[in-house]
């Protein structure tokens, strides 16, 4: 009986451990320290703002973020004026004019992030057939999450001598199959941070992943705050209910 119980426990543990395997030939991404980790974690807003700068100046040349709106940027602590300025700097379609022709104009905070290409085909055509994925949910959409995105951004290297690379592909330690169509996007000093932070590759990658993590889960901070209140409430509720139960049942046992 005892042995069987252990067997059940071991099997249950195996279920927990048996997460769907990461790409077989790529090493697991090393764990990084993130401001948003853990049940108390919140986004480092300065890092997220720097990350937005990296996205705007580097990533957004090829990658869309179609589920974000400029108004959402209030979530990383940008002011209304800053957001209006960012939105006004892009030209967005604004329906039809009186002659029935497509009209364009400066964006407003209510507009969605402008995509770099009008459609998927145009994007592929510009990238040797490869499609740079939309980044709105990228941190959720990859096993390994933030650690994996950081590993990809910092994992470019020279291919091993015995490896034959396909045309236009780049070697990356952490990408499944090691051949990624994206050229190394970040270099030391690729962006100049207004707050004076030294822009190393690691710093840029860390900042942009913080921004992308926020973009994928913008509700996270509020969610955890409510979560603590809910769990605390339920713990008290459980205690009270159990006390009532004991009292009600006291004359039965």
């Amino acid at each position: 009986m005892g042995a069987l119980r252990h067997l059940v426990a071991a099997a249950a543990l195996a279920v927990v451990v048996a997460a769907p395997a990461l790409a077989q030939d790529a090493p697991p991404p090393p764990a990084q320290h993130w401001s948003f980790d853990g049940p108390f974690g919140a986004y480092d807003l300065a890092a997220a703002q720097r990350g937005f700068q990296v996205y705007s100046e580097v990533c957004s040349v090829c990658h869309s973020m179609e589920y974000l709106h400029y108004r959402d940027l209030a979530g990383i602590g940008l002011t209304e004026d800053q957001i209006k300025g960012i939105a006004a700097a892009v030209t967005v379609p604004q329906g039809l004019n009186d002659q029935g022709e497509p009209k364009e104009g400066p964006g407003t905070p209510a507009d969605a992030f402008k995509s770099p290409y009008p459609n998927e085909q145009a994007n592929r055509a510009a990238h040797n057939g490869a499609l740079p994925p939309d980044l709105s949910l990228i941190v959720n959409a990859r096993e390994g999450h933030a650690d994996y995105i950081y590993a990809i951004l910092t994992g470019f290297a020279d291919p091993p001598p015995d490896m034959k690379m396909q045309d236009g592909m780049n070697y990356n330690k952490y990408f499944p199959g090691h051949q990624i169509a994206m050229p190394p996007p970040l270099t030391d000093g690729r962006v100049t941070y207004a707050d004076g932070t030294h822009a190393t590759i690691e710093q840029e990658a860390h900042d942009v992943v913080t921004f992308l993590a926020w973009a994928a889960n913008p509700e996270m901070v509020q969610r955890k705050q409510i979560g603590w209140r809910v769990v605390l409430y339920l713990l008290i509720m459980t205690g009270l209910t159990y006390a009532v139960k004991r009292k009600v049942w006291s004359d039965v046992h």
Partner: protein
Amino acid sequence: MAGQHESNFSNPVVNWIDTRLPIFTMMQKEYATFPTPKNFNYFWNFGAIATVTLAIMIATGIFLAMNYQPNTQLAFGSVQHIMRDVNYGWLLRYVHQNGASMFFIATYIHIFRGLYYGSYKTPRELLWMIGVVILLLMMATAFMGYVLPWGQMSYWGATVITNLFSAFPIVGHPIVTWLWGGFSVDNPTLNRFFSLHYLLPFVLVGVVFLHVAALHVVGSNNPLGIDVKSPQDTLPFHPYYTVKDSVGICVFFIIFGALVFFAPNLLGDANNFIPANPLQTPPDIVPEWYFLPYYAILRSVPNKLGGVCMMFGSILVLFVLPWLDTSKVRSARFRPIYRQLIWVWVVAVIVLGVCGAHKPEGIWVVLSRVCTLYYFLHFLVILPILGKLERPLPLPESISRPVTGGGGPLPSGATAKPMEKA
């Protein structure tokens, strides 16, 4: 007042209604004074917990449906709209998404309780069979619900599962085309799945009602698995079990809340954050965790039709379980061998779940075949034979005897009837 129901409620409005439609009398009879065995353990919480979870699923689902677009071009984006723009949309969606998992956890524990304490045995066979119908309806509802966000795993999961029907000879392919409403999983499929996903939970409520109605005819089983012999063996449902169920529901909500607020995507698949793409198959197509054991059974058979039959058979065998188990003793407590073997069966199911999460290669194929074999062996061979061979332990005389050593007094006001000696 000839021909009218006699009511004695002090509140005149309640009394007026009850005289004409005795719903208050019914509630009092079925949920307040209803005599319930006094020796339930906390395993008996899970029926109430599952019912509460069903209510939560329907409540959150109704509000999600107000903001969701069942169209292949819009579905994925509308879910993001719910997550980002709808007030507390993320909360509704994460409760609904994790609620499905919690519903299955509650139901699986509820089923295990039935298996361990022999709740399926006479006179509760029909009650048990209605329960299996509930499980099947839940599975269909959960499967169709998982398709709605229209992510990669939604799409490819739907493709794989609907394609199972193509295994049947002659009628197979026409059935699949008919299910899809076309020649692949596409907009008509999404539309009908949405429609059915909204409908089936209400059917589920109806069947749960039948389940409870049948329960209230034959009465609850209990951890000793022996019949109620006297009023000393029972307690009125309220307040004894309403309060005990409430304790269990609170604890269940803590786990539910921890999942929703701190790890809402723990049980999900990263691939479902990528919009459905009919031209790109994900590297692994894996169902949600609660379907993994069946998926492993399906893949353990090298023949497609055989696999499909085994998979459906693994549920259908539960319908005839009351007649496969030949032992007259209900509770595993008094069945020394069954008490061990039921745990072996549980281990087999858990291992099947692990196998279902892995690619069918190497050791996983062997393991899933061994466990599938044991799964069916347990029901089809062991249970019929064991009932004849096993020597059960002596059963207690009555419920109140082992618990209180001879029927202690019931609390005042707990029951209207005077005490009877057994």
